[in-house]
C-alpha cells in the first residue's frame, strides 16, 4: 500500500471529501452518521499524538529540571561519586556504575538461562509439556517487580549470606586479579544478589523473543540438517542460532533495557550505599534504587534537581538501548513485545 490511508479515506471521499456540501442539502441522500466522520478522525489522531507528547514531555521536563544541576556541578555530576545531601554535593557515578554492573550480571546469567530454556522448549521438549512450560516462563514476566524484591530479601539474601557468599570469599577471594570482586563480609545484600534477581526477571523476555524467532526458522532447513546426520546441538549451533542472530541480539538488548530500569526488586536487595567498591558482594546502589529510596524524602532544590537529573541519565541510557533493540527486532519484522 503506497498511498496513505489518510488521503484515501475510503469511499467517504466520494461525498465531497467527507464534508456535508456547503449548500446544506445534497441532491442525494447522505450516508447516515457522515457528520461524525471528521470529529472521530480528529479524536483518534489527538489520542495518538498524546503518545508523542508523553515521550517529548518526559524528555523536556527531565532536561529542564536538571539544567541547574549540570550548571552547578558540570561534568563532575557524572564523574564524581560523592553523594552528600547534607553538604549539598551530588555526584552520580556510584549509581551509574551500580546500574551498569547489576545489569551486566543480569545479562551474564540471564542470557544463558533464557537461551537454554528456549532451545530446550524448541528442540527437546515433549510436545505435551511445551505449551505449559512456555506459559510458566511467560508468567515469570507477569510477577510484579515488588514480589521479586520481597522474595529476594527474605529468601535469596539469607541463602547468599550463609552459603554462597562465604563459599565465594573462601574459594574465589584469593585468586589474583579476579579475587577482589569477591572480598569483604558476606552481607547477603549487594550488587551480586541484585544482579542475580534481575537475571531471573529478564529471562522470560529474552526467552519469549527467542522462541518466536526460532519459530520462523524454515522447517526444511532443520530437517535438512537432521537428515544429513547433525545432532541436536549441531542443529542449534549451525541452523537455529545463525538464522535468528539479529533477533537474538535484539532479545538480549531488550533484557538489558529492562534490567537497567528495574526499580523495586533492586531497591530491596542492593543496600543503597553511595559507595564505589570493587567487590560485587558489597552493598551499592543503582539509579532507580536511589530514586525509589530518596525521592519522597528529598529536601532542597538542589537535591530534588539532582535526583531528576539522575532520572534523565537513566532515561537516556534506556532510550538508546531500546532504540537499538527496536532496530534489531524490526530488521526481522518483529516488534518489542509487551
Amino acid at each position, binding site marked *: 500500500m503506497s498511498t496513505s490511508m489518510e488521503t484515501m479515506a475510503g469511499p467517504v471521499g466520494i461525498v465531497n471529501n467527507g464534508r456535508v456540501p456547503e449548500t446544506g442539502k445534497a441532491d442525494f441522500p447522505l450516508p447516515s*452518521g457522515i457528520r461524525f466522520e471528521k470529529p472521530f478522525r480528529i479524536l483518534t489522531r489527538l489520542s495518538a499524538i498524546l503518545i508523542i507528547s508523553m515521550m517529548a514531555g518526559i524528555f523536556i521536563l527531565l532536561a529542564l529540571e536538571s539544567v541547574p544541576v549540570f550548571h552547578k556541578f558540570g561534568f563532575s555530576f557524572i564523574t564524581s561519586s560523592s553523594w552528600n545531601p547534607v553538604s549539598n554535593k551530588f555526584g552520580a557515578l556510584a549509581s551509574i556504575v551500580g546500574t551498569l554492573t547489576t545489569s551486566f550480571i543480569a545479562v551474564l546469567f540471564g542470557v544463558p538461562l533464557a537461551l*537454554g530454556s528456549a532451545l530446550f522448549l524448541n528442540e527437546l521438549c515433549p510436545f505435551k509439556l511445551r505449551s505449559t512450560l512456555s*506459559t510458566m516462563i511467560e*508468567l515469570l514476566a507477569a510477577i510484579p517487580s*515488588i514480589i521479586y524484591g520481597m522474595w529476594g530479601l527474605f529468601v535469596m539474601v539469607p541463602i547468599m549470606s550463609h552459603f554462597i557468599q562465604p563459599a565465594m570469599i573462601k574459594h574465589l577471594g584469593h585468586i589474583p586479579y579476579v579475587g577482589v570482586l569477591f572480598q569483604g563480609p558476606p552481607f547477603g545484600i549487594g550488587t551480586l544478589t541484585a544482579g542475580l534477581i534481575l537475571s*531471573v526477571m529478564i529471562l522470560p523476555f529474552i526467552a519469549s523473543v527467542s522462541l518466536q524467532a526460532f519459530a520462523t526458522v524454515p522447517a526444511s532447513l532443520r530437517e535438512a540438517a537432521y537428515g544429513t546426520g547433525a545432532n541436536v546441538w549441531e542443529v542449534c549451533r549451525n541452523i537455529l542460532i545463525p538464522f535468528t542472530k539479529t533477533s537474538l541480539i535484539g532479545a538480549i538488548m*531488550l533484557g538489558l533495557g529492562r534490567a537497567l*530500569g528495574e*526499580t*523495586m526488586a533492586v531497591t530491596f536487595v542492593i543496600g543503597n550505599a553511595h559507595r564505589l567498591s570493587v567487590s560485587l558482594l558489597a552493598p551499592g546502589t543503582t539509579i532507580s534504587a536511589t530514586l525509589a529510596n530518596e525521592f519522597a524524602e528529598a529536601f532542597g532544590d538542589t537535591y530534588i534537581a539532582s535526583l531528576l537529573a539522575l532520572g534523565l541519565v537513566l532515561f537516556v541510557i534506556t532510550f538508546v538501548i531500546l532504540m537499538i533493540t527496536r532496530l534489531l527486532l524490526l530488521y526481522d519484522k518483529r516488534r518489542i513485545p509487551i
Partner: protein
Amino acid sequence: MKPDPSVLLRRRIVNYCMLVLFTVAIVISIGALTAILWKLSFSGLQAFSPDVFLKSTPAPGSSGGLLNAILGSVILIVTAMVAAIPLGVLAGTYLAEYGRTSKLGDVIRFCNDILLSAPSIIIGLFIYGIIVLPSKHFSGWAGAASLCLIAIPVIVRTSEDMLRLVPDSLREAGVALGCPYWKMIVKIGWRSARPGIMTGILLALARISGETAPLLFTSLNNQFSTLNMNVPIASLPIVIFQFAMSPYKDWQNLAWAGAFLITITVLGLSIFARQMLSTKRRP
C-alpha cells in the same frame, strides 16, 4: 568413507553436555517460578485472615489489616483504567486505520514502543514534575495519572495489532455499502477485534496492579482509608514495600498477605487474558 570414531565420539559427548545444560537452564527457570510461588503461598496464606480485608494498616505491634491499601489501590487502578482505555483504544485505532502508513503513525509507533519498555520510575518522575510539583502536594490524582501513562502504551499496542488482524476485505465490504469510515471502524473493526482489545486491556490492568515505583512519589501513602483523590492515598504495593522493609514481624506478615493477594490477582488476570486470546477466535 568410514567416519573417524573419535570425531563421532566427541560430537556425541558435546551434544550430550549441551543437552544437559539446556535441561539445567529450564529447570532453573521453572524452579525460580516455583520457588517464588511456593514461598508466597506459604507465607501469604499463613498471614491471611479476614482482618486483612476488614481493618486498616496498624501501627507496629497492634493488629490490623490492609483495608485502606486495598481500597486505595482499587480507586487508583479504576481511575487510571477509565482514562487509559478510551485514549489507548482510540490511539491504537488511529495507528491501525488512519495512520497505517503515514509518517506520523511511524513516529507514534516508535514512541509507543519506547514507552512500553521504559522504566516505570521515569513515568513517576514525569508525573511528579507536571502534577505534584505545581500543586505542591502528593495526591491520588497524581498516582492515578502515572498508572494511566503506564497502561496506555500496552492498550495502544494490542489494539493496533488486533485491528490489523481484521481482514481488509471486511473493511472494503463495509465502505462499499456506503458506511462512513468511522462507522465501519466501530461496527466492523472494533467488533471483530473485541476479544483481542479486551486482552490488551486485561494485560494493562495486570501490569498496573503490581506497579510500585511510580506511586512512590506521586500518591505516596496514607494510614487511613480515604476516597479523596486530592490527598495522598494508600496503595497495596507501597504498603507492601514499607512493611516488608520494616523490622517488625507483624508488619512483614501483613506484607506477605498483601504480596500474595497482588500476585494472585496479577497472575489470574494474565492467565485469563492469554486464555481469552487462545480460545476465542482471533479476528
